[in-house]
């Protein structure tokens, strides 16, 4: 049996004596006998490290890891520089708690301050929080932060990721506030329909850029309509695309959020990831979550602390609009490392190559008889094709170590990143062609 308790049997007996109790049961004297568990737990016996290692490795081996991933839809397989994988495994970063004690947590606080700065640079916004759980909750937190007494309704584009829509729906269900979903037209947010929905009680509108189908929304025009109606404009952005794409600030957004996973986090069956969240100066005191600020210490030296905590649940209790009191610190550290390792040029290169490879793949696929693009709009690194024999195509790709695109609404949503080589794309297209020519 494995155990991480250092005290020996003799030590424990002496300690019990020091405490003045006869045995462990006596320590639990407040626990009524009728509920005291008088049987062993019905779980396996403890194991040695080697045995556990075998058991868990056997589970990992039951998964299939695809060398080539052409599937995104919210989780993206980008190349992660080696140093980005290594730094967050350092034990101090890994095992520390939330940096409440600034005097012994400057390393974490500074790493978050640097992360906040990078997110501001990436999004063009003024201030960023220390991160939230993921992109979907960032969207939900943004909706909550935009509500006030008069404006309670949240609008979300139907072209956003379904997990994001469903999460925002759940948070709205919690507070009992209305959610309206904008219909999709030609793969994009239907602007005319949105305008119909923009009544005087709308608090915020969320769009995803590029959207779930990979298409670029007309973010400026949407922003104008939203602001005309007096509502707040929230944009959920792909952080890699932001290496080259017009920033939410430039599009007129009030709040910029997004799924931070592409910034150095592996796919990991969905988590841990992180949500980034940034806003304008004027909304500073509404921004939920942890925030790190710069100050000076007793010697006048620059240092960092958790700040603006009067916004938080432990002070506002039942008046709080969010209960979040942690961040994804280690993921924020990872994202910071990733952005530092890539630099502005590297990030732009990852974005350009992802986009170029997706377009190359689309060109190869649409050259095949029977394959067409579903939408005509400009896209980033994802696109939807129409084709026959979808299950057969995906099966044939799988047999060759390629995770094909995701079946959505009768088509396939493909994704390519800088990690995929031309040879892999050629190979994938050849397999699709072969299946369809049968």
């Amino acid at each position: 049996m494995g155990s991480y308790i250092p005290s020996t049997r003799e030590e424990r007996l002496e300690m019990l004596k020091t405490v003045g109790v006869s045995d462990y049961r006596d320590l639990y004297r407040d626990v009524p006998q009728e509920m005291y568990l008088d049987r062993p737990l019905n779980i396996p016996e403890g194991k040695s490290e080697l045995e556990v290692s075998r058991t868990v490795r056997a589970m990992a081996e039951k998964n299939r890891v695809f060398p080539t991933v052409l599937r995104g839809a919210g989780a993206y397989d980008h190349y992660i520089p080696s140093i980005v994988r290594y730094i967050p495994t350092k034990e101090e970063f890994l095992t520390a708690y939330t940096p409440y004690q600034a005097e012994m947590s400057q390393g974490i606080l500074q790493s978050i301050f640097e992360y906040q700065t990078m997110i501001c640079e990436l999004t063009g916004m003024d201030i960023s929080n220390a991160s939230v759980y993921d992109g979907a909750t960032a969207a939900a937190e943004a909706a909550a932060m935009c509500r006030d007494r008069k404006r309670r309704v949240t609008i979300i584009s139907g072209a956003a990721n379904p997990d994001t829509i469903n999460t925002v729906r759940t948070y709205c269900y919690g507070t009992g506030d209305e959610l309206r979903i904008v219909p999709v037209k030609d793969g994009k947010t239907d602007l005319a329909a949105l305008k119909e929905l923009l009544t005087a009680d709308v608090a915020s509108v969320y769009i995803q850029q590029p959207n779930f189908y990979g298409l670029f929304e007309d973010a400026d025009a949407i922003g104008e309509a939203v602001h005309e109606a007096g509502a707040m404009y929230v944009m959920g952005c792909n952080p890699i695309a932001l290496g080259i794409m017009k920033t939410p600030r430039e599009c007129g957004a009030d709040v910029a959020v997004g799924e931070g996973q592409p910034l150095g986090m592996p796919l990991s069956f969905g988590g841990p990831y992180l949500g980034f969240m940034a806003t304008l100066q004027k909304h500073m005191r509404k921004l939920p979550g942890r925030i790190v600020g710069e100050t000076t210490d007793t010697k006048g030296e620059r240092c960092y602390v958790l700040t603006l905590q009067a916004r938080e649940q432990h002070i506002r209790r039942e008046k709080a609009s969010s209960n979040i009191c942690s961040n994804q610190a280690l993921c924020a550290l990872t994202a910071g490392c990733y952005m530092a390792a890539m630099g502005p040029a590297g990030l732009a290169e990852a974005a350009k190559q992802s986009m170029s490879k997706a377009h190359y793949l689309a060109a190869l696929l649409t050259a095949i008889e029977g394959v067409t693009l579903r939408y005509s709009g400009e896209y980033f690194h994802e696109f939807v094709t129409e084709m026959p024999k979808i299950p057969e195509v995906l099966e044939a790709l799988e047999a060759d170590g390629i995770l094909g695109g995701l079946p959505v609404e009768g088509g396939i949503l493909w994704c390519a990143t800088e990690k995929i080589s031309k040879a892999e794309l050629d190979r994938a297209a050849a397999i699709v062609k072969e299946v369809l020519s049968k």
Partner: protein
Amino acid sequence: MKLIFEKSVPGRGAAVLPACDVPEVQLSAALRREKAPLLPEMSETDMSRHYTELNKRVHGVNCGFYPLGSCTMKYNPRIDEEMAALPGFTGVHPLAPAHTTEGCREVLKTAGELLCEITGMDGMTFQPAAGAHGEFTGVLLIKQYHEARGDLKRTKIIVPDSAHGTNPATAAMCGFQIVNIPSAPNGCVDLEALKAVLGEDTAGLMLTNPNTVGIFDENILEITRLVHEAGGLCYYDGANLNAVMGVVRPGDMGFDCIHLNLHKTFATPHGGGGPGSGAVGCKAHLAEFLPRSAMMDEEGHIQVRSFAGNFLVVVKAMTYILTLGREGIPEAAQNAVLNANYLQAKIKGTFTPAFDRICMHEFVLDLSKFKKETGVSAMDVAKTLIDNGMHPPTMYFPLIVHEALMLEPTETESRDTLDWAADVFRKLYDLAHTDPDYMHASPHHAQIGRPDEVKASRNPVLRWNPEA
């Protein structure tokens, strides 16, 4: 130390990506950003040294004693990290076909079954990413339950005033009115106060047991019975489960749903504030209301995060539980309680425990009399502990004890460490009587002196500014 931006040199960088091997495609002009983000430009050496320097300015559980009450800062086993880093887990796309992700699904199923047995629950979700997130999920189960029964008059959630601040915030996020009830002096539920507020409008009660002062509420069966009789449900805040796992189960105490902090009780690291996992368990009558992912599972359910939550954290917790097993789980709880009582006994005679009795996995010191005598506050003591290489206990919580310091040593500390800690506390107790000014000015040897928090809040500087 310098910020990473202050070490950046234009033109530096690491060669990470090869040249593009397909025809390059440009964004149309209207979609391009005006200028590049001002991200650092670093060589790999610069980066490695920068983050090593930062890492030296962090106190982790691996550095030393970390008795932060309510946070269960136990040792984080390395094998758990190694298992979570297996490419067979990290390389799996959450939307890959089910027959290629059997291992991941087995992890979720196994961890769910283990935790259901440990807590006495019937269903478990790993979607919530943190404790507060789990609370939100759990209270939404209660909301759905009443609604599904057409019982729409239940609009109130009862929260004792000793509760974690997240409890009332959570209830508000779920659209409930909060009814605060006063605790008995020992932090336990005042049965009369509870009876007085129970009624047809009661949706549920949120409770931590052992409570926030480290005492097991011996009336717990009576409490959950009263709530159920009134038609409400009982929510268990699992923050303090480390005291009782394998010894007594929340399900057997009468709770309907719970959240667990895998990053506390089940030894997964806190990572400086996350990622954690706020798994939520429930009895069978609530299982149909558990969250699902629209992408991975199906529409029509609540959802609190994308996909299946912080999956790798679940791998770590499962590895931990499999290692400890049926004997090791209760043994960990028993020794967490033993260590807390031992440290309390060793400190007694100097600082005063708020409750002079056997505690659970943590105990609270009440420094109000000490402060009157010496002028030295709980904060001063905490900051002087830093100079002694110890992470301070939780300060000024729970709110029902004044000048509180809350200590939770956990089971992974040796008797030697506890003896050393008690010595440090005794030393500071004496120092406060001889040189209080020294303690007011602490820390003296830390990374920094006390930060000016008022300045940080009044003139917020929340990012590096190149012009400054």
